């Protein structure tokens, strides 16, 4: 133990381990150990970096001194070294001898089977030293423990593997190794290239996926392929809510392949208006092929779902509208539009859309197409309201699901416009005719506001106001104190036609007794027309009666114009049994003069007013002083809305006679 320096303190305790919780050494024990080791060198307090470096240098200097001292003791150790070497040499020689003996013993045992005579000679062996035979103890031990003739040997065929062959094998192996290494390098390079390509493709794919997500589309896992990403493009309240999803698969070039299922051919609704040997058509969206940007293709898929649902709902509704003239012709739905025109609706693939020829009604067709889409969106909105409102209690009877109203609002709107137009034409013609009689009549038409749905969104209110409870108020002022107030309302249900409510204005006008309007609503336009014309007739009769109260009796008219009705004097007009006729008694005769006023519809939307007078009584009574028979004084006068006026000779008179003049007032 001379190598251990004096004063070295050996600690039987291991260096303190770090605290597992705070990973700090137990500082106290470390400081104590340092103090114990360096007790004669100042302990822990004097431990600095410079002092440690100084100590290391001092130790190195001491080792150099020791090696110099060892060089002075070299000759003394040499003798010892030689002696040790001699001993080692002798030991090695003994070992060689033992090995030789054991080899000999082994050979002898092996030969004992075939050459028993060698067993005797092996009992003694020459030693390497001096040639004296010494007993082979090793052989004696083997003889005692191992029976003779138990070890056999035979000559084997020598190995065919020559040195040359071995060298050849080595070079073949080397060649294989090089070849496989090359292959490995090539495959690694190929893998790296493929990985790089794959990264580019994946980057391209995910860039497009991110762009889809940024576009606001809803992304999710496919239902039956959890590892595949899909985009949901359907409508939450639509019929095909669960099917409107497309898988986003990566194509060979990194582009997204939109896999929307089997029946994913892009389609659209086309609206055509068929006139006299011509077709107007709505525009159809452009077809986006597979190479187009993915967002456009998703939008196209969404539009296809929308168009498909729209078509299904149109056909479903059309089955209930057969009474309105809606019909199926092949794959199209045909609806009446305006007189002479029909509306044709169909679902077409976008690739078959073709070019749209210019036509004046193309914009109308576009408008109807947009209108149908808005109505379907409104139906979706109503589905949402129905789904999210407080659920009704479970009942045995389930409510019927009515088809959406898509064509019906269109028919309602058309019917309403037709009624309003008819009313406008009739009233305008009537007013013109009245004016030509000298009566200043007037009218006004006002579209009444539809009731506001308080809970509906503004967009819904706009659409509902265009298709629900369409009303028009027409106010006709015939003569002061007599007028008509007509409210025409068209409702979608049940029959989408217009009903008219006629009231008098003011309510206590003379027409209340003469020709009161029907108390019920009238749905037949002809009846409305008849009443308006009849009311005008009655109003004119009342007008004449009122006039004669205001003006003196007219003087006897001249006979220079035989076409002008004769004047009446002294007698007054009075009401007759018919509210549109008046009569007066001719003085000193038994004759009554009847004046009947009639309004009629004439061809070309014309309204004519006819004043027809006739003498009722004794035909032999002559007019005093004239010698003319009174029976020859029957006649008529007409006023037309176009301005030309006729007398009973059917000759057009340029000079317009007022009603008062005709009545002789």
């Amino acid at each position, binding site marked *: 133990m001379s190598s251990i320096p004096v004063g070295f303190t050996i600690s039987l305790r291991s260096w303190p381990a770090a605290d597992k919780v705070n990973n700090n050494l137990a500082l106290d024990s470390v400081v104590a150990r340092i103090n114990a080791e360096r007790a004669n060198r100042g302990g822990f307090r004097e431990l600095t970096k410079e002092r440690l470096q100084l100590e290391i240098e001092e130790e190195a200097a001491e080792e150099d001194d020791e090696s110099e001292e060892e060089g002075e003791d070299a000759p003394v150790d040499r003798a010892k070294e030689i002696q040790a070497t001699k001993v080692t040499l002798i030991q090695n020689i003994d070992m060689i001898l033992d090995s030789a003996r054991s080899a000999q013993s082994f050979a002898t045992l092996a030969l004992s089977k075939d050459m028993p005579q060698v067993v005797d000679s092996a009992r003694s062996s020459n030693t390497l030293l001096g040639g004296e035979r010494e007993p082979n103890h090793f052989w004696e031990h083997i003889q005692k423990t191992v029976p003779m003739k138990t070890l056999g040997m035979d000559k084997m065929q020598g190995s065919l593997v020559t040195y040359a062959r071995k060298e050849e094998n080595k070079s073949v192996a080397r060649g294989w190794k090089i070849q496989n290494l090359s292959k490995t390098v090539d495959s690694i390079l190929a893998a790296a290239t493929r990985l790089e390509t794959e990264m580019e493709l994946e980057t391209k794919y995910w860039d497009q996926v991110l762009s889809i997500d940024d576009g606001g589309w809803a992304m999710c896992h496919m239902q039956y392929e959890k590892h595949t990403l899909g985009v949901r493009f359907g409508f*939450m309240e639509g019929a095909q809510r669960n099917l409107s999803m497309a898988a986003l698969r990566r194509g060979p070039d990194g582009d997204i392949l939109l896999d929307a299922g089997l029946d994913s051919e892009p389609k659209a609704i086309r609206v055509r208006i068929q006139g006299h040997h011509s077709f107007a058509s709505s525009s159809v969206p452009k077809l986006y092929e597979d190479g187009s940007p993915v967002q456009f293709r998703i939008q196209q898929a969404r539009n296809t779902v929308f168009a498909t649902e729209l078509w299904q709902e149109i056909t479903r509704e059309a089955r209930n509208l057969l009474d309105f003239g809606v019909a199926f012709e092949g794959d199209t739905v045909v609806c009446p539009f305006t007189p002479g025109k029909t509306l044709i609706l169909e679902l077409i693939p976008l690739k078959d859309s073709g070019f749209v020829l210019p036509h004046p009604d193309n914009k109308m067709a576009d408008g109807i197409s947009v209108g149908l889409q808005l109505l379907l969106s409104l139906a979706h909105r109503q589905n*949402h309201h129905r*789904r*999210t*409102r*407080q*659920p*009704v*209690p*479970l*009942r*045995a009877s389930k409510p019927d699901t009515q088809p959406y109203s898509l064509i019906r609002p269109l028919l309602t709107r058309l019917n309403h416009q037709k009624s309003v137009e008819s009313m406008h034409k009739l009233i305008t013609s009537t007013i013109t005719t009245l004016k030509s009689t000298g009566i200043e009549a007037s009218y006004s038409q006002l579209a009444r506001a539809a009731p506001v749905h308080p809970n509906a969104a503004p967009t819904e209110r706009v659409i509902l106001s265009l298709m629900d409870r369409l009303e028009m108020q027409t106010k006709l002022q015939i003569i002061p104190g007599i007028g008509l107030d007509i409210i025409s309302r068209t409702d979608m249900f049940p029959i989408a036609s217009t009903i008219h409510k006629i009231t008098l204005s003011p309510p206590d006008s003379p027409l209340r007794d003469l020709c009161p309007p029907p108390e019920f609503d009238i749905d037949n336009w002809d009846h409305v027309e008849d009443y308006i014309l009849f009311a005008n007739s009655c109003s004119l009769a009342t007008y004449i009666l009122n006039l004669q109260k205001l003006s003196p009796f007219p003087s006897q008219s001249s006979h220079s114009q035989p076409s002008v009705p004769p004047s009446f004097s002294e007698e007054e007009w009075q009401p007759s049994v018919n509210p549109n006729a008046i009569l007066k008694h001719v003085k000193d005769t038994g004759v009554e003069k009847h004046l009947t006023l009639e309004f009629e519809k004439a061809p070309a939307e014309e309204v004519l007013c006819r004043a027809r007078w006739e003498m009722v009584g004794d035909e032999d009574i002559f007019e005093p002083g004239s010698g003319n028979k009174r029976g020859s004084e029957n006649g008529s006068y007409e006023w037309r809305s176009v301005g030309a006026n006729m007398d009973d000779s059917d000759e057009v008179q340029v000079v317009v006679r007022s009603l008062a003049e005709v009545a002789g007032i």
Partner: protein
Amino acid sequence: MRELFLTFVVNDDAKDRSLNILEKFCDMKSQIILQRQLLWVPLPKRMQKKEVTKKPGALAKLVETSNDPMKVLECHLNRLPYMLILQYDIKTEQYGTEVDCDETTATLIWTDIPIPGDSQQVNDRDRVQIEIKAEDHPCSKMNDLKYRYVGEIIKDGYRFVHGNISIDLVRTVQTSATAGSKNEQGNNVPKIVPDYDKIERQPESRYVMSAKIDVEDKKLIQQGKDELLALQKELQGSFNLKFQDRFLFDTRVRV
């Protein structure tokens, strides 16, 4: 009408996450619930003349055949004393304003104690709900039924709809508003709507989620239960809707 329901308690700090989950699950934005519930109990005199029908099954037959919910309600009230609720839908703009509850349309609600069941089922109870229009004076109607006002609860929360099931997430607070002086009709319902935002809540205030389905036809009760249990299974993991002890919903009172 029968009401089937399951409930679950949601902590206040989990409200936003719960709303998020329900919005996605039901595919809709939440509908706000803000209701003022006036509590009424019978007068002691009322129960002196009990008209308890003696025919077995007569009440059940009346419930099945009668189209007059008020008649059905009166029949129930004549058997046992219950607490009734007059419910008013309010808006935040009405906080602190004067509202005459007798001149406002209200909903009269009566619920019976749920029938006994086990944890594998849903809570099941009878319910009668009658709308009383303003011109019919709801508070006066309560006086006619010999009921008196005893307190007020404000309920606020959110509602979602999933098929036939209504999912409510509400919290309640009993106002400390003192009863007002008796008005002309003889009740002392306070006229001022409390300012809900200023009412102190308990520190452990929580939302109660209830999924309920109403059934009119008795033959469809099992269908309603199946739908509720299916919903329970779907929401498992997010919300542990479960059957509760029926006495938690006992509205019977001691007179």
